[in-house]
């Protein structure tokens, strides 16, 4: 059996798959980071209803299996008449649903990662900021979050890596991302199941290595400016 021509045949489909994985992941990470940061601000806010909302969100979505989220979003939302208003980057409705499910779920973990970082900043920092006359929002953006950021990077990257791999669940809901390609490759190349698997695994490893590399870069940058 010749390996190279087989790899040559599989590779374009795997790369196609990873392109979709990349789009799903990047959009989900952006969305969950924004939502997660807002939730974290709510959880440390002096306003009780905000705190209650943040806590409830985390409790509901962190404790729900991701597959349940996917089924709810992909099958439940259309029943309720909720459809994505727009699609982007050449993605279809199913991909948009996958992004909604993934980022709703991941935001809960992002929130907790950021909050753990906020808790590493000494309370005196916030007191000094308030004493100078900064509002709650200014205290957060100018004093607390910049200092929390460095402590947040490692746990946040773990969350991002989990999100990257979690995007594979979309395969079960008709999205032809990398993992979705694996099923079709196994069908088309029944003699090369191992090869298909290892190519796919290698692809995910590359993605995760890139993420981890970026994070240590960021960490080092911030370590110097302290």
């Amino acid at each position: 059996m010749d390996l190279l021509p087989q790899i040559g045949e599989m590779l374009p489909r795997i790369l196609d798959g990873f392109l979709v994985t990349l789009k799903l992941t990047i959009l989900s990470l952006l969305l969950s980071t924004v939502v997660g940061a807002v939730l974290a601000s709510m959880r440390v806010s002096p306003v009780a209803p905000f705190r209650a909302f943040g806590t409830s969100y985390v409790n509901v979505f962190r404790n729900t299996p991701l597959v349940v989220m996917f089924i709810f979003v992909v099958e439940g939302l259309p029943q309720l008449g909720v459809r994505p208003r727009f699609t982007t980057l050449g993605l279809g409705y199913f991909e948009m649903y996958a992004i909604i499910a993934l980022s709703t779920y991941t935001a809960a973990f992002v929130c907790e990662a950021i909050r753990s970082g906020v808790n590493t900043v000494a309370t005196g920092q916030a007191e000094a900021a308030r004493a100078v006359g900064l509002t709650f929002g200014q205290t957060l953006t100018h004093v607390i979050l910049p200092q929390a950021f460095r402590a947040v990077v490692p746990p946040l990257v773990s969350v991002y890596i989990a999100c990257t791999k979690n995007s594979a669940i979309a395969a079960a809901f008709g999205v032809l991302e990398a993992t979705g390609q694996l099923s079709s490759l196994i069908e088309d190349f029944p003699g090369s199941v191992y090869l298909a698997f290892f190519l796919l695994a290698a692809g995910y490893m590359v993605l995760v290595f890139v993420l981890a590399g970026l994070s240590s870069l960021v960490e080092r940058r911030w370590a110097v400016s302290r």
Partner: protein
Amino acid sequence: MTEAATAATDTTDTDALVVLTGVNKWFGDLHVLKDINVTIGRGEVVVVIGPSGSGKSTLCRAINRLEPINEGEIRLDGVPLPAEGKGLAKLRADVGMVFQSFNLFAHKTVLDNVMLGPVKVRRRNAGEVKKQALALLERVGVAEQANKYPAQLSGGQQQRVAIARALAMQPKVMLFDEPTSALDPEMIKEVLDVMVELAQEGMTMVVVTHEMGFARTAANRVMFMDEGKILEEAQPQEFFTNPKTDRAKDFLGKILTH
């Protein structure tokens, strides 16, 4: 309007800047401030002394509402302290605070520490603020450190930067919460010198401290607290030579003998 007018006539000193009326505070079951009534006049320097746990720090922190009170009222320049929110932030901008543990913003340079408030809270022009900040750092004697980070400075230098940061807001009153308690003995003087100078320039100050020397030289009035109550208020000379209460005599006996 009428409320402010009555308040002014209620207090004998019309130039009252900080007025605490019937202030009570509890930490759970612990009654930490018991029926506190204090009036601090403009330009007055009040030193608060007392044993640990007497409530003196809590009293100081209550004045800019870092510690909310349970009962009573605190007025600053005639205005009652607002609840948490934009109004409170605005009021805090007029109250400088210096902490025991300095609390300089660790991720900002010395200069940026001093500039943050005027630029973000007062929304003043950064170039103009920078000039003023450098002048303030010069005045407290740490101008050469302007571009360093707080962790690179000694405790005494950090505390002087903290004083400059508070002064940059051009506050009506300065609160000092044990400003020298975390310092090595030889650094205490450099901080106290700045504070004495500030007092002589007419700044209104509330100083919680164990530095009796500062109380003697700079204070207009000494307040002695124990178990959440103000037991004695007197001019420093009077208080140190002729304390009225047994508790104050006992306290002074302990700290002045060594």
